[in-house]
């Protein structure tokens, strides 16, 4: 009896350790994480952010999004993003009204300017939301882009 109780406690301890390791791996910051299937498969920006652990993002004026106000061709919309928040380690992009809003995360190791230029497909007029990660916190801003011809489905 005593023996059994002991092994149960041991097993419990091992589980606890696993849980700790697991939560360490799921920490925001995304370091070394694999391509995030659940975030990329999310159908809303909010769900995608949750899957990425980007909760409590605060609005910031220190992220600059340069994109056209009106895009004539939704298939190729140029977007320039610069974060002026010190210590920005990554920038994530969510095209809110696309079927799968999460468009990508760009990581900037020390020494890389927190800037990225990309070209994205916009299905229809939509806010383009950016989340910057700096010092373990998240900052966000968005810019509305009007699309006159959609970029999805062709």
């Amino acid at each position: 009896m005593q023996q059994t109780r002991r092994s149960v406690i041991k097993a419990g301890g091992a589980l606890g350790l696993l849980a700790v390791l697991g939560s360490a791996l799921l920490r925001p910051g995304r370091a070394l994480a694999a391509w995030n299937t659940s975030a990329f498969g999310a159908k809303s920006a909010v769900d995608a952010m949750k899957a990425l652990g980007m909760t409590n993002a605060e609005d910031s004026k220190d992220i600059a999004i340069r994109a056209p106000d009106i895009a004539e061709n939704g298939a190729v919309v140029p977007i320039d993003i610069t974060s002026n928040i010190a210590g920005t380690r990554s920038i994530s992009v969510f095209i809110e009204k696309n079927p799968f809003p999460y468009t990508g995360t760009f990581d900037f190791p020390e020494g890389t300017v927190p800037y990225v230029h990309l070209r994205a497909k916009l299905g229809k007029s939509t806010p383009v939301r950016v989340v910057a990660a700096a010092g373990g916190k998240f900052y966000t801003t968005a810019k509305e882009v009007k699309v006159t011809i959609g970029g999805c489905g062709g």
Partner: protein
Amino acid sequence: MPDPMKIRATLQGDVADVRVLMAHPMETGQRKQGGKVVPLHFIQTITAQLNGRTVFSADISQAISRNPVFAFKVKGAKAGDKITVTWKDNEGESRTDEATVRGGS
């Protein structure tokens, strides 16, 4: 074998302005051709290295435009440094290309 990337890295002071053009269809899985859906086929990850040190990486979705173009800026670069870019897509295909950082005007 996918077509090579076009990589241009130009110095502005000690910052290398890197622009990359990748040849890839970036199929969304929503487009139809002859009544059939063209399957999802897109680049998922990108990494860039300057003289072997990772300076930029990205996870992206199919919402990035066909023949993707990216630009980023790396501090502390010198003319002659090697910039290497690798992409990998959802079908396991990948491509790595290299360019030399060139002095700016």
